[in-house]
C-alpha cells in the first residue's frame, strides 16, 4: 500500500513539475522540476515513508526503463550510419574523455582538500 501511495506522490510531483515547467516556460523538463519539488517535500514523513518504499523499487530497475528508447535508437541506426566509423570514434573518445576528466578531478578534490573526509588511507593521486 505504501508503495502505491509512493507512486501517487511521484506522479503528483511530476505533474506539478510539468505544470511549472510549461507554465513558466522553464528551461528544465517537468520530471526534473518534480525531482526538485520532491527534494523539498521529503522533509515530511507523510511523503517520505511512501516515497522511499516506491523509489527503491523503481530505481533498482532504472536500466529496464531505458529499453524502449534504446530499441528505438537501434532500429533507426541508419540515420547515423551514413557518417560511418568516424562517428562511432567521436562518440567513444568523447565519452571516455568526459568520464576520465570527471572521475580524476573529483577523486583529486576529495583527497586534497576534504578535511571532513575520513578515508584518506588510500593512495593519493594528482
Amino acid at each position, binding site marked *: 500500500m505504501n508503495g502505491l501511495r509512493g507512486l501517487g506522490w*511521484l506522479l503528483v510531483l*511530476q505533474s506539478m*513539475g510539468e505544470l511549472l515547467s510549461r507554465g513558466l516556460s522553464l528551461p*528544465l*523538463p517537468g*520530471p*526534473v522540476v518534480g*525531482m526538485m519539488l*520532491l*527534494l523539498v517535500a*521529503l522533509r515530511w514523513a507523510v511523503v517520505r515513508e511512501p*516515497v*522511499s518504499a*516506491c*523509489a527503491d523499487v*523503481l*530505481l*533498482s530497475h*532504472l*536500466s*529496464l*526503463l*531505458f*529499453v*524502449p*528508447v*534504446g*530499441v*528505438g*535508437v*537501434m*532500429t*533507426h*541506426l541508419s540515420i*547515423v550510419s551514413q*557518417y560511418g566509423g568516424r562517428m562511432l*570514434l*567521436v*562518440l*567513444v*573518445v*568523447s*565519452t*571516455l*574523455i*568526459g*568520464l*576520465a576528466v*570527471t*572521475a*580524476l*578531478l*573529483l*577523486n583529486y*578534490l576529495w583527497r586534497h582538500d*576534504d578535511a571532513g573526509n575520513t*578515508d584518506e*588511507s*588510500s*593512495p593519493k593521486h594528482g
Partner: protein
Amino acid sequence: MMTPATLTNQAPSMANFVELWVYLSATPLFGLTATLVVYLLAQAAYTAVNHAPWANPVFWTVTAIASVLLLTDVPYPTYFAGAQFIHFLLGPAVVALAWPLWQRRADLMRRWGRLLLAALAGGVAASGSALALGWAVGLPNDVLLSLAPKSVTAPVAMGIAASIGGIPALTAVFSVVTGLIGALSGKYLFDGLRIPTDAAGWTARGFALGTASHGIGAARAMQVHADAGAYAALALGLQVVLASLLLPLLMRLI
C-alpha cells in the same frame, strides 16, 4: 481478428503460427511482454557473470529486441505501443532520484562546490571533445550541434538540440549510444586510471558515470554500489540543469 482459413490448406500449422505471430506482434501485449521477459533474462545473465560491464542488460536487451524487430519487419511504433508502459515510468523514476540525494543531503551540502566544479568540467570536456573531434573528422555543422548535448539524458538532449539548431532525432541516437558506451566501458577506464574503490573512489566513479553518460550510466552505477548510484543520480540531475541553461547560451555566443 478474423482467421482467413482458406489460405492455409498447404501447411496449416505453419500458416497458423505466422497468423498468430502477426496477431500477437500487433497487440501492445507483445511489446510489453518482450521488453520485460528479455530484460529479466539479460539481468539473470548479468548477475551470473558477476555484473561484468560487457554483460550490460540494457545493451543486450536492446540489441536482442531490435534484431527481432528488424528480422520480422515489425515496425517500431507497434513495439512501442506495448513498451510505452515501461517507458512511461521514466518520468516518475527521474522524480524518485530525489530520494537517494535526500538520504545523503548532509554530505552533498558539504561538498556542493566541488561537485559543481566536477560537473562543469566533465560536461565541458565531454561536449567540447565531441565538437572538436567531430570537426576534425569533417562532420557537417548541424551534426556537430546535435553532438553537443549528447551527455544529457535523451528527452532533455533532444530539446536542447532543437533550441541550438541541431537535429533532435540524431541527438537521441547519440545520447543513447553515449549512455551505453559509458555503462560498458566505465569500470575498465576507472580501473585503468586507478580510481580506487573506497568510499570516496566510488562516489567519483558514480558521479563521472552520471556526468558523461546520464541515466544509462547512472543505472549501471546503482547496480554496482549504492553511493556510486546516488552520486550518479546527482550528476545526471546537475548535467540536465547545466546543459539546459548553458549550452543554448554558449551556442549563441559562438
